[in-house]
């Protein structure tokens, strides 16, 4: 049985190591925070915060304290605030060990598309281009196929890119793949998913 959202998030959390500073994207990546266990992970919110805490209790929301998804959050004892130039300075400068992001498409060379569908509503890339260009390791968490059943792991991206050759690892409902020389390498299969099933759902070259 393929992994559900929480299992994908839990698998992504396995990639995080004690002491890391990490940026989590919107959607499934946000759930990763629930699975870091007793590892000492510091979450960055790119609007200007290190040490992001959970959502506030009702009645304790603070309009001056939101995350990059514009949601109300809380601070921790370790929290530090800073401005957007400093925040993206640390992202661009490689100080963030890992970013865990969603995607529309990933290509076998690590190209990533997750910000725009031409002809549809255009919302903008936000901080995604800076994150994938700057952080130490980019881990994509997404469903293996789109709602039409087509593979999201492609030979080449068809959508406008967020970054070129930037993805290091892909975690889907079917398993885990590394981006390596020549294509993708299967690291792990989801419980009950066979290698054939995963290959059948993958357009990208598997090496």
């Amino acid at each position: 049985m393929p992994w559900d959202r929480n299992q994908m998030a839990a698998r992504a959390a396995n990639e995080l190591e004690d002491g890391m500073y990490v940026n989590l994207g919107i959607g499934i990546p946000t759930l990763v925070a629930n699975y870091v266990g007793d590892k000492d992970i510091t979450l960055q919110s790119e609007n200007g915060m290190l040490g992001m805490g959970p959502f506030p209790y009702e009645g304790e929301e603070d309009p001056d304290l939101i995350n990059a998804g514009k949601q109300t959050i809380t601070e921790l004892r370790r929290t530090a605030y800073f401005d957007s130039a400093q925040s993206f300075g640390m992202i661009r400068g490689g100080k963030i060990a890992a970013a865990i992001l969603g995607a529309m498409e990933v290509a076998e060379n690590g190209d990533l598309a997750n910000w725009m569908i031409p002809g549809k509503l255009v919302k903008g890339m936000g901080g995604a281009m800076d994150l994938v260009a700057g952080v130490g390791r980019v881990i994509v968490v997404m469903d293996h196929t789109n709602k039409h059943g087509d593979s999201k792991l492609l030979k080449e991206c068809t959508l406008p890119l967020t970054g070129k050759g930037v993805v290091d690892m892909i975690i889907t409902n079917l398993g885990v793949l590394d981006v390596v020389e020549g294509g993708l390498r299967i690291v792990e299969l989801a419980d009950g998913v066979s290698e054939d099933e995963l290959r059948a759902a993958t357009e990208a070259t598997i090496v």
Partner: protein
Amino acid sequence: MKKVYANATEALDGLLSDGMLIAAGGFGLCGIPELLLNAIKDSGVKDLTFASNNAGVDDFGIGILLQTRQVKKMISSYVGENAEFMRQYLSGELELEFNPQGTLAERMRAAGCGIPGFYTKTGVGTVIADGKEHKDFGGETYILEEGIFADLSIVKAWKADETGNLVFRKTARNFNPPAAMCGKVCVVEVEEIVPTGSLDPDSIHLPGIYVHRLIQGAHEKRIEQRTVRQREDA
């Protein structure tokens, strides 16, 4: 040199002109200069270009200036929360220049620091790099991004002293310091002006040298997405 003005309209007096470029602080609806935006709306100035990470929502933030068609162009990283924006953009009434969020922040900071251009890896190989100079450093390719030199900066801080030294609160700091730096003139709204000497000189986020005019006022501080968790009962 008195920097403190009575209200937003007076603080903007003589500074607004059609077609000008305004850099605005804020992220989403957090830390936006809401009083100054209202006064800009009331002034009727038009054909504005805004360098601002977001465009507000339909009835708050820069969104109110979209309703009145006072905005010609946005330089932003994300405009997803604003239906009127989308309508005007898709109908060709509004120009839009997307900047990656970090590139936008650094372009503002750069201009404020007298740096007309800098190289970044962000956007290499994407549409963002189209038409921009590419250059190799240490075997890697970077693109040239230019400083945003604004005619006017509008900024929201938490507290100021009478000389304009500013303190921000939590994530409401965001784009406000870089936006403040990049304008020829910078007008700031705060929740409280405190006597000079009552802020810790080691904890001033933006020194008064960047601040030309200052107002104090009541802020709505609207929350865009109210997310909460349940209390565990004892």
